[in-house]
């Protein structure tokens, strides 16, 4: 592992009005690590992910991508964002485009690839997530699990260095959760660096290299998956995580 972390988050703070959603959150991610964030609803996990790729501007604090500070990077943020693939709870596929067009759009517009190479790359990524046979389907014609796999392919097509997953399986039925988790595991096995927010504890413990427990805008505990699920802090908070499913 190199000395410079892929991603370093330093004292991130974010408030909405009087509500402090993030209270000085700091952590580092090195190449190949899988950091999984768990915690009760409304503790700022989604906000944290969005403050990392600047979809939400933090009030203070820093984010370093390969050692470069990106919070105050102005227009360069568009280049940095390509390196941080994001997967949303509701997929957010572009509703007016087929699966393959969803994947190739940013290749054409952002990476300025020519049509042929963009299409090839998009088809390759769809194959990776087992969706090549649905390339010409529109989002409304896909199941939730299929849509989420396409959205993963869309993010992967930009060749990101780290993937941010915000509850990628929360909107899915158990059967469909599994197919998305399968894709994530394959990705992890290929060495992709991942930051995942999830409510699936079983998945978290088998997937993570480190689990972070968040509560009211703070990381209250973190450690290897062998420790967190039995830590007193986690057991205590777990009572408030009503929706935590066990896969």
């Amino acid at each position: 592992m190199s000395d410079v972390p892929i991603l370093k988050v330093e004292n991130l703070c974010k408030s909405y009005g009087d509500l402090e959603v993030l209270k000085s959150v700091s952590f580092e991610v090195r190449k190949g690590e899988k950091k999984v964030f768990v915690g009760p609803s409304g503790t700022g996990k989604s906000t944290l992910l969005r403050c990392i790729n600047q979809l939400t501007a933090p009030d203070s604090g820093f984010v370093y991508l390969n050692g470069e500070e990106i919070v105050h990077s102005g227009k360069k943020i568009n280049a940095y964002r390509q390196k941080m693939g994001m997967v949303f709870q509701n997929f957010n596929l572009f509703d007016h485009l087929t699966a393959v067009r969803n994947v190739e759009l940013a290749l054409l517009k952002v990476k300025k690839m020519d049509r042929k190479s963009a299409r090839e790359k998009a088809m390759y990524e769809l194959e990776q997530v087992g969706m090549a046979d649905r390339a010409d389907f529109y989002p409304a014609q896909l199941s939730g699990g299929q849509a989420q796999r396409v959205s993963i392919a869309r993010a992967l097509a930009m060749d990101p260095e780290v993937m941010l997953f915000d509850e990628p399986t929360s909107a899915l039925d158990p059967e469909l959760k599994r197919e998305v988790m399968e894709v994530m595991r394959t990705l992890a096995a290929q060495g992709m660096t991942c930051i995942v927010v999830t409510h699936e504890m079983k998945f978290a413990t088998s997937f993570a290299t480190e689990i972070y427990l968040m509560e009211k805008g703070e990381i209250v505990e973190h450690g290897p998956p062998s420790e967190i699920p039995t830590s007193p802090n986690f057991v205590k908070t777990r009572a408030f995580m009503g929706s935590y499913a066990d896969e």
Partner: protein
Amino acid sequence: MFESISAVTNSAGYILGGVGVTLLLVGLSLFIGFICGIVLTLGQVYGPALVRRFVGVYVWFFRGLPNIVLLFLFYFALFPFMGFDMPAFGVAVTVLGLRSAAYQSQIFRGAIQSLSDGQMLAARSLGMTRWQAIRSIILPQSLRLSLPGWSNEYPVLLTDSSVAYVIGVAELLTRTSQVISRTGEPMILYLTCAVIFILLNYGGMMIIQYVEKKVRIPGFGNNEAECL
């Protein structure tokens, strides 16, 4: 009687020419309204506070005044005052177009606001600029969603276009009236005029429906009803 009928048929070409003028008037106004409407909407949804305020006032102004007042205002007062020597047709296109822009901007705005924030977030997360996201995602989606609103705007503009009569634009109604004053056949001529308007209305709606079908995307917008 026969004399006047033949006078009417002799004027057919002249009246049909009026149909051309009406269509040109409506077409150009819709086009101006479309382009300006998009610009206004983008200003209102994504622009800074000052631009949003301007669009608000613009929409309020053009939707708040009767067409005929706007026409007189621009034709007899504003344009001459500003030194524009514009023919009546140009003034009518400008006024109807700018007014339609106010209405169309509100159709587009409703459509944009009905899109989920996730579309923009996903686009930005891939490294697209805001403008790229607007062009490739927000506009294609919201324009599709605007088509039903458009099928309201077209008949309104078509019927409104006859107000250009008051500043002497040689459109359908103007020419019909001229022929009537020469031949004294109001019944047949006004009926003809009415039928032509109805046909233009119908034809335009067919085109809009055709476009709607052409750009339809499975599961996008409100076309589930079709499956029932």
